């Protein structure tokens, strides 16, 4: 900076800034003067004044506007909350973009959809793992399973076995005589029933009676002994 100041005396600096205001500087000269201008408030005042004068000369009259100093001060306050603009396109595209440069990964517009799919996949795997764990754990312990299997085996054997066991070995069964009456007739009536059916009903009552809930319908369907 000091060297730049030494290179140009004060009048020359102002003259160069005047040329910069007209956009008539190029190359290194442009960069040097811009560098000095950005660091000296006194030059900024000249910059502001010259643009105002040019504005009045071009228009032939002065159109009212906000005072530039106040405008810049207000803007400075607002810009204090703003982040520095991203440094990506500070040089023309033809220079800045290299053919060999790796393309930036731009998040797709539907990116959240894939995120949800990933979450759903993980949840499915977790659910499958939980079910498998329960299944393996149940297979290792299996007291209830074995009991159930034994019970089912007994139930498969019980109906035929109990009935056959209850049946007399002779093979001929005498019919049962049951005395019934409805009260309208004086003489009791006798009903002959198949003795084999009575045995089957008794066996059924012994095997499954305790597991059934008592109900009127089932009670009516079960055998009532003649003694009642």
């Amino acid at each position, binding site marked *: 900076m000091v060297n730049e100041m030494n290179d140009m005396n004060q009048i020359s600096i102002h003259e160069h800034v005047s040329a910069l205001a007209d*956009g008539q500087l190029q190359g290194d000269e442009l960069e040097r003067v811009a560098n000095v201008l950005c660091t000296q408030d006194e030059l900024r005042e000249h910059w502001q*004044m010259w643009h105002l004068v040019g504005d009045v000369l071009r228009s*032939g009259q*002065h*159109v009212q*506007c906000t005072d530039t100093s106040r405008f810049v001060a207000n803007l400075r306050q607002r810009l204090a909350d703003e982040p520095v603009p*991203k440094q990506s396109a*500070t040089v023309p595209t033809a220079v800045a973009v290299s053919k060999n440069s790796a393309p930036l990964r731009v998040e797709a517009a539907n990116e959240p959809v894939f995120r949800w799919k990933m979450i759903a996949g993980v949840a499915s795997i977790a659910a499958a793992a939980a079910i498998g764990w329960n299944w393996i754990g149940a297979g290792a312990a299996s007291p209830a399973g074995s009991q159930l299997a034994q019970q089912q085996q007994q139930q498969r054997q019980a109906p035929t076995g109990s009935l056959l066991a209850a049946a007399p070995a002779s093979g001929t069964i005498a019919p049962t005589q049951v005395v019934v009456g409805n009260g309208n007739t004086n003489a009791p009536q006798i009903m002959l029933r198949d003795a084999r059916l009575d045995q089957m009903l008794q066996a059924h009552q012994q095997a499954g009676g305790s597991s059934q809930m008592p109900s009127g319908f089932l009670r009516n369907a079960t055998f009532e002994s003649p003694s009642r």
Partner: protein
Amino acid sequence: MTAILPPSEPPDAAPAERPGAADFLLVQRTVAGDQKAFELLVIKYQRRIERLIGRMVRDVDLVEDIAQETFIRAYRALHQFRGDAQFYTWLYRIAVNTAKKALVDMKRDPTVSEAAFRSTGDDDDETYRPRNEPISDETPESILAASEIAAVVNAAMEALPAELRQAVTLREIEGMSYEEIAEVMQCPIGTVRSRIFRAREAISAKVKPLLENQSGKRW
């Protein structure tokens, strides 16, 4: 709705050789973190942007807010400016869009203001001459100050030596480049540069006392 035409584009050239190379350099410096460079751009274009917005909204209370919003938006998007166009062309579009949005937000009809804007003239080039427009917040004092400043500038111009007056006239009013002025005046470019600078300094010396009285005000 009639479209607002942006300022005319300069012919294609390498960024360093364009008339807008200075603006582009200031943009580069801003993006690199130098906020003062952006303030120089604001100083340069604030008055033109306010005039442009003033034609669209015609409400002086809104003009400054919209102009501020315009520069904030420009600052945020500055990294997108690649120097393909003039900086003012780029800023102009941001200002028009910001003003339109403000009008829509206010449930006004933007087409009315645009029609008014188009009928009042062209703010597209450097030699544009704005017209005096009634603005709702003008006060007799501010009108007087504005006319006084214009009178002082014009008087200072008349008082300049002929070669200085000619040089600054060709530059500011005719919009010629230094090379063209040198050709017209048949003198070296360095002399043109010096004459324009001296003319500006002479005019500024007369205007400065007036501006000190108007500091912080709208004028």
